[in-house]
């Protein structure tokens, strides 16, 4: 196990599965994603099967297993947002960034993903960038948002 993993894991008591989410969050914060070898390391440390770690991590939109762009867009695909035409947001975003879901822009700045319900349906349509929520999106507001990140 790499020393980086050991140092991170040692902040938490061994064999206590209730710390799984905080541990995953630490890995995600550190790398922007969860490195694959971390799954086995966490499994060993918490004494739970590796597939359970993966199961929990894939349950939440928050966690990823590959490096996304500097700004990772997650567009809600839940029912509430679909009803409020998230479809338009999705295609508009694809047009603005010139990428499809799962892809990353050539300069490494943007990546795009569709995710299940983000949990704030009353604010639909919703998207999140690097975990921060943007509610009641319209094509106009979307363009402003993308421009804001582009010019950062």
């Amino acid at each position, binding site marked *: 196990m790499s020393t980086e993993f050991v140092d991170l894991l040692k902040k938490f008591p061994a064999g206590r599965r209730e710390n799984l989410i905080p541990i995953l969050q630490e890995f995600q914060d550190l790398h922007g994603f969860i490195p694959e070898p971390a799954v086995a390391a966490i499994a*060993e440390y918490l004494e739970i*099967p590796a*597939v359970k770690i*993966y199961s929990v991590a894939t*349950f939440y939109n928050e966690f990823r297993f590959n490096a996304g762009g500097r700004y990772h867009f997650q567009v809600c695909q839940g029912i509430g947002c679909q009803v409020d035409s998230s479809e338009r947001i999705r295609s508009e975003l694809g047009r603005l960034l010139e990428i499809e879901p799962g892809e990353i822009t050539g300069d490494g700045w943007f990546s795009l993903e569709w995710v*299940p319900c983000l949990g704030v349906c009353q604010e639909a349509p919703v998207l999140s960038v690097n975990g921060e929520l943007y509610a009641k999106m319209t094509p106009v507001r979307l363009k402003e948002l993308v421009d804001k990140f582009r010019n950062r």
Partner: protein
Amino acid sequence: MMIEIEVNGRKIKTQKGELILDTLKANGIHVPTLCNLEGFKPSGACRICVVEVEGRNDLVPSCSFFIEESMKIQTHSARVIQARKTILELLLSNHDDACLSCDRGRWCKLHELAFELNVTERKFGRTAGRKKIDNTSQAIIRDPSKCILCSRCVRVCEELQHVAALDFLKRGSRTEVGTVLDKGLNYSSCISCGQCIQVCPTGALKEKSHLDQVGALLQNKDKVPVAMIDPAVFATLGEFFGYKAGPEFSSILINALKRIGFQKVYGTGWGAEYQAGRLAGILIDKNPDENDTPLIFSECPSVVRYISQSRPALLSRLVPLKPANQIMAHLLRELTCNQTGKSKSDVSIVYLTSCTASKNETTAAMRIKGSGFLPDFSLTTREVYRLIRLYGIDVESLNPEFQEDFFGVGAKSGQLGAISGGNIEMLTRIIQARIPEANLSGEKAGKLRGIKDVKETTCEFNGKKLTLASISSITQFENYYKEIRSKHRKVDLLEVMACQHGCINGGGQPCRGAERNLRNRMKGVLEWDDRFSGIMTKDHLDLPSDLILNDEDCQAVFSPRQITK
């Protein structure tokens, strides 16, 4: 407490606190189930088992709801039937349509339910796209497009096998069953036991078929195909044809295989007894005070895989003997070469087995040509049935053909290897034959037989007393192992099988009806054994004079296998 409830207008006596489904079953009322798994905690995932309870607005899943006093239940009201139908239609909307070419055939539970509930068309359009098939394992294939997310495989793999190779990934409409990092079964902790295939209601899980290769082999005039049959297949295959397990069907099977084109047909029993003889030698020489106990004896490739990838510290306890099928594959290859004058590479050994994990080994043989001790191909019981059908053999018209070959009659107790406890029984018989004054507690008391998780017996000779135990399923193994360690109990030998109750319940067996047929299979094995009961098990088996088997030939080498745990 006994109470009275009403089901479909009929009064029924039952226990308070019993699951509704159990009460219905006990009273002959059939309610369909999909996710419910006997012997496991109910999961309530599929809802196909819903019933109407008077006074409640919602329908309740009978598999996970308890009986309450003066309950009034409707199991087949119009509302209930409509709900079940809709549930099934929704399940089908996400299910692959490739039913005509599905290997599950008429054993598909989904298909059966569609028939039962009169669902005759696709009501809802397909929502999910085709998902990637997991082909990574040499034994098990997973096709998530056919999965209905019932969770049966997940539960069996974790709770029965302590392996937890599978779990639900993602959530919502994207939920799927998968393996760690989505890399496929071969990368996971899977031990290829095939128990997940057994419980899957659909064709989402199946073995990697060798039928095409065996078909080509049978057509190849330059090759000599030899069938080698596992006792569990003898004890089970008859179920497909309505035959009782036992010697009669076994000989019919041999006849059928010869008609298909196998030049020679043998059992593996001889090899099992031969290796049990070697094991007896190890135990007789064993110093009873050694603290490396228990020795672990396993002919089961799933157990060996489990230990080598998840418990490498126990590798040194594994008795280093090759399993019977490898000994037999080697001998039969040599024997056939001697008899036909063909070269080794022209003789192909096809292993007919209830074991899906054996596919891992035969696949290795396919790659490393002529690796001597491994069979070339393996067919599960299900595949053997299909092979017989493929070749149009009318089993009913065949007469029994008793086997005259050397390996058919030499062994007296080798068939027992198909049931958990069988190897120990074989072993104690051989010890008894070698040391007539040995005192066994097991055999007569039937301690090693029947449907039990743990079977223990003792064996006293030369002033020492050995405790021998037999266990099946990996969870039971882990529990038992922990227990004897924590209580400092001395168990000298532990026979472990991955499939509960032994190979008769293997992952390659018929997908439906195991619960019903397990006892019959066990009886079939024991009856076969009884046929020889007048003949004492020998203290050792002699090889035919033209065959050689060195000590090293019989030994196995184990090494750790790296996986993501």
